[in-house]
């Protein structure tokens, strides 16, 4: 009973959070999907459902949080991840990722006694760290497929360092260097002690 109440309250919060992410405009079908829970069928072929997006947002900001520089969601990295997943990656890769995400949500609900997004940030952080460590320990296995959290980490790190925030605030990038210094110390290259952002 206790748990059920918590879940209902948190679900409302989750909708609020998702609404914020989508600029306050949450369409009715998406809101319904969210209220119907994780097992509801996908309503869209070109974006996350609101529930999926809420989970991805939460995980992404745990992997790359806002510090003195913006984190994953604020930088636009999650949006980039979503765009790439639905438009750049192959249908097979996308399905695989979404299936793994669904499995993660199911397992999280079982482990946490509530859906992942309903859990407190502290619980979420602890849980993501645990799942992450297990994923890395497990390795790619015989299928060559990385566990969800490993893939999620890889994806968000990749997209974060494709955003202006990642490339210019965390790492460094100069649009017009104006010269080439072939051998300078790491501490004196550009801003110093920062890796050049890489884009290929």
């Amino acid at each position, binding site marked *: 009973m206790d748990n059920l109440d918590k879940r209902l309250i948190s679900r409302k919060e989750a909708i609020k959070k998702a609404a914020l992410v989508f600029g306050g405009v949450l369409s009715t079908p998406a809101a319904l999907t969210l209220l119907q829970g994780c097992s509801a069928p996908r309503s869209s072929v070109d974006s996350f459902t609101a529930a999926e997006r809420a989970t991805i947002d939460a995980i992404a900001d*745990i*992997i*790359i*949080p806002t*510090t003195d*520089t913006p984190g994953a969601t604020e930088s636009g990295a999650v949006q*980039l991840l979503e*765009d*790439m997943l639905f*438009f*750049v*990656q*192959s*249908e097979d890769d996308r399905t695989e990722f979404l299936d793994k995400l669904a499995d993660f949500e199911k397992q999280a609900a079982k482990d946490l006694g509530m859906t992942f997004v309903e859990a407190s940030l502290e619980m979420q*952080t602890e849980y*993501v*760290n645990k799942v*992450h460590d297990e994923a*890395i320990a497990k390795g790619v296995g015989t299928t060559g497929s990385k566990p969800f959290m*490993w893939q999620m*980490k*890889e994806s968000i*790190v*990749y*997209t974060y*360092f*494709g*955003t*202006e925030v990642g*490339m210019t605030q*965390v*790492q460094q*990038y*100069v*649009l*017009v*260097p*104006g*010269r*080439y*210094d*072939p*051998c*300078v*110390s*790491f*501490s004196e*290259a*550009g801003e110093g*002690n*920062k*890796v*050049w*952002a*890489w*884009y290929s």
Partner: protein
Amino acid sequence: MHLNIKAKQANTYDAIVVGSGISGGWAAKELTEKGLKTLMLERGRQVRHIIDYPTGSSDVWEMPYRDWLTQEELKDYPIQNRTGYAVRQRSKHWWVKDTEHPYTEKQRFDWMRGYHVGGRSLMWGRQSYRLSPMDFEANEKEGIAVPWPVTYGEIAPWYSYVERFAGINGKNEGLAQLPDGDFLPAMEMNCVEKEVKKRIEENFNDRMMTIGRSANLTRAHNGRAACQYRNMCIQGCPFGAYFSTQSSTLPAAVATGNLTLRPDSIVTEVIYDPETQKATGVRILDAETMEYREYYAKIVFLCASSIASAYILLNSTEHFANGMGNASGELGRNIMDHHLNVGAYGEYPGFDDMYYYGRRPNGIYIPRFRNIDDKHPDFIRGYGYQGAASRTGWKKDIAELSIGAKLKEEVNQPGPWTFGIGGFGEWLPYHENKMYLTTEKLDKFGMPTVVFDAGGKENEMNMRKDMKNQAAEMLEAAGLTNVKTFEDEIALGKGIHEMGTARMGADPATSVLNKWNQIHEVQNVFVTDGAFMTSSACQNPSLTYMAFTARAAEHAVNELKKGNL
């Protein structure tokens, strides 16, 4: 054709240049500077310098999808995307949509091209090397194909001429297999490259490593700004700091007041007058209006690219059943390229506290060392390597990175130095390596399309084994660790150095062009793009096209003055 005299006069020039890429730009510059009223025809759209470089000053994060194409977009570029690097959000507008420009591959042929003013001069890799005396002599010495009708001594001053105008940076090394040139100051090697160079040269007395020679300005030159080390050349350079038609030859041609540039003009054939045995002009299909038009001139320069120039000649069948200039049967044959995507890379332990500033649009070059003094048992000719050392990415791999705030610190611990090289190998000219036209498949203009039936043979395959093994050996000897080799499937065209479809030679029975790039049978038609190449050598070829084009233009004008054309 019933044209009134006035209309014909309005469509008449001294010279017509077909194509606006590296060769076409040079032809237009040289002919207009020598006073010829010149019409330059380009099948694709207009691209104005800077104004029409849509991503020329874009920051990388402004590209959607982190620069990748969507699955939907890729459907238009299945072939152009075969290189894996060429088609990106920042550069997709420079490549043809394969869906609009079909062709047939009896054997795989990666035909990479852009239809627009400037052609591939906008997207080229800018590496600029002279062919050497041994390259011009090899066919004759080895009895391969036909001898080059031109010696290095004849073309050397023209190399100097084009280098001085284009602005090629590089270092003179006094090598027999890679002649010195008239260079701008060389770019510099980074710490690791300097060290690898030293160790390779210590360990292999037949090898050396030099800085790449590229068409990027290392100082302001001929009214153009110096390279700003953005390494965004393919986006179009707002500084005009690399050689392209737009930055270099076109402004020079326009300045003469003698140039007319007509984009959207697909040349379908060369018009011929059997009485004078000369070409009188070209027929075009206006890509916008779908109307045919004729333009007339005393001389025609075909600079449409190896495949397209051969196409135009093969399609000029009004008076030549097998195509204009094809009495030898060699037109469309002997297609060559450079075979590549084979080499090695590894990590360089050390220089942990060293880094660099700026993005150098150039790498290192290891000139050919095979079959110079010794004779390799498995193949003739040779290959060079291009490569670079860099320090990109961070120390820990993704799996090792922490989760949370600490991740942001860890990604600023630079990873190890890496150094890699890939070979560029000579491809022999084979008579059976051919392209031809078919009417069974028509393009959207109703024009015949190209069929490719060409590939690599034993000499290329054996050379590739050596390219891979020697790359690994050199890297090991240079002290690199974790050395890995790579090798892709060999594919004609993938080097984007296709050439040889209208080779030059002294004998009209076995070649299409004479030593001045004139068609043997139709002497007022010149072909000066890669089609003229009698052998491929292993050096990047564009500089050679520039030199031969400038030389042919001077010859053409001299012959015109003498009344010979």
